[in-house]
């Protein structure tokens, strides 16, 4: 906001100018603002497939309280979710269903492979179990543990937040538009 005047007293008395606003304005880059909003409102798609889902539920409950990180809004509709937390053993029978739910999630989206099974098949070296969900989806964060404790999931979530902080959504979008028009 700029007020073109030579008289400072007149500027201060301008009716439309609220001097209290001074402390409430933050200058930043659009990328940072978008990243800040995204990382603090990660809505999880809880892909609970085995015992890790119990720890996921514990993470959502009061003691560990995932809402401290803005990720408490578990969405059972993939269309409203931002991060898929694959918590549990992915069997081959389930694998393409997980993939399909992932594809129904709108961009931008991230994926956390929670626990040994989702990361690598875990102890199930077996004909029936997919050896890591990263064979089907791009995984951003792997969490070790069998199952991981809720603190580990929160640590993974914070890691994901740091990943999001480093993203360049506007630049990516411009690059995408350039690519589409060229």
């Amino acid at each position, binding site marked *: 906001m700029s007020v073109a005047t030579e008289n400072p007293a007149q500027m201060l008395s301008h009716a439309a100018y609220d001097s209290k606003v001074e402390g409430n304005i933050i200058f930043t880059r659009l990328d940072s603002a978008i990243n800040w909003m995204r990382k603090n409102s990660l809505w999880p798609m809880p892909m609970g497939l085995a015992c890790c889902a119990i720890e996921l539920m514990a993470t959502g409950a009061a003691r560990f309280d995932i809402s401290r990180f803005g990720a408490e809004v578990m969405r059972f509709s993939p269309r409203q979710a931002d991060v898929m937390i694959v918590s549990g053993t992915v069997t081959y*029978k389930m*694998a*393409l269903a997980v993939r399909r739910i992932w594809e129904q999630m709108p961009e931008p989206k991230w994926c956390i492979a929670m626990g040994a099974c989702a990361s690598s098949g875990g102890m199930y*070296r*077996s*004909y*029936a*179990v997919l*050896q890591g969900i990263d064979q089907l989806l791009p995984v951003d964060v792997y969490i070790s543990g069998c199952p991981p404790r809720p603190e580990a999931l929160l640590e993974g979530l914070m890691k994901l937040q740091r990943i999001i902080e480093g993203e360049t959504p506007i630049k990516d979008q411009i690059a995408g538009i350039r690519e589409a028009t060229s």
Partner: protein
Amino acid sequence: MSVTGRKADEVRSDSSKLRKQFGRTKVREMFEFRGEHTVVVKLGALEEVLGYCRSVLGYEFLLDVSSVDNMGDDPRFEIVYELATTDDRKHLRVKAPVAEGEEVPTAVHLWKTANWHEREVYDMMGLKFKGHPNLKRILMWEGYPYYPLRKEFPLAGKPSEMPDVAFSGIAPLEGGPFVTSPGTDRVRGEPRAKGES
């Protein structure tokens, strides 16, 4: 006489009733091991023997249906029925040898619970049940080409592909399978990969 003793007597007399009713050609073997009674019957007589157990001897509760792959033997497979009563008074095991390609008569009309058990046997071992109302796979997907509990099937699995339904691959065993070493101390007896890893 103890309660278990009376139970064992009752099952023993059930076994001999079966032998008397069906004869040696149909009820081939009867034996007892640690208080558990087993009768081995001819596959062709399985349906009538099970029916007799259900209606005359009072085994109204089917605990489990399972199957065994004795690869190399002939007949290769064996089907096992675990019969019991709802008051847990007695327990009888009925087995029948099944050759490759032979069909097993369904027990669904005797015990409704046989429906899913038989589907599991079909899914995992590939034994077919004659007269089953809904014989399709129950754990693996319809169209999976193998029977995973057969002896020739590797633990790591085999690759398969069914577009838009499911696929499967080979699990890395890295020197496995992971096996326990019985008889050693508990730390050394833990499941570990033996050999190559």
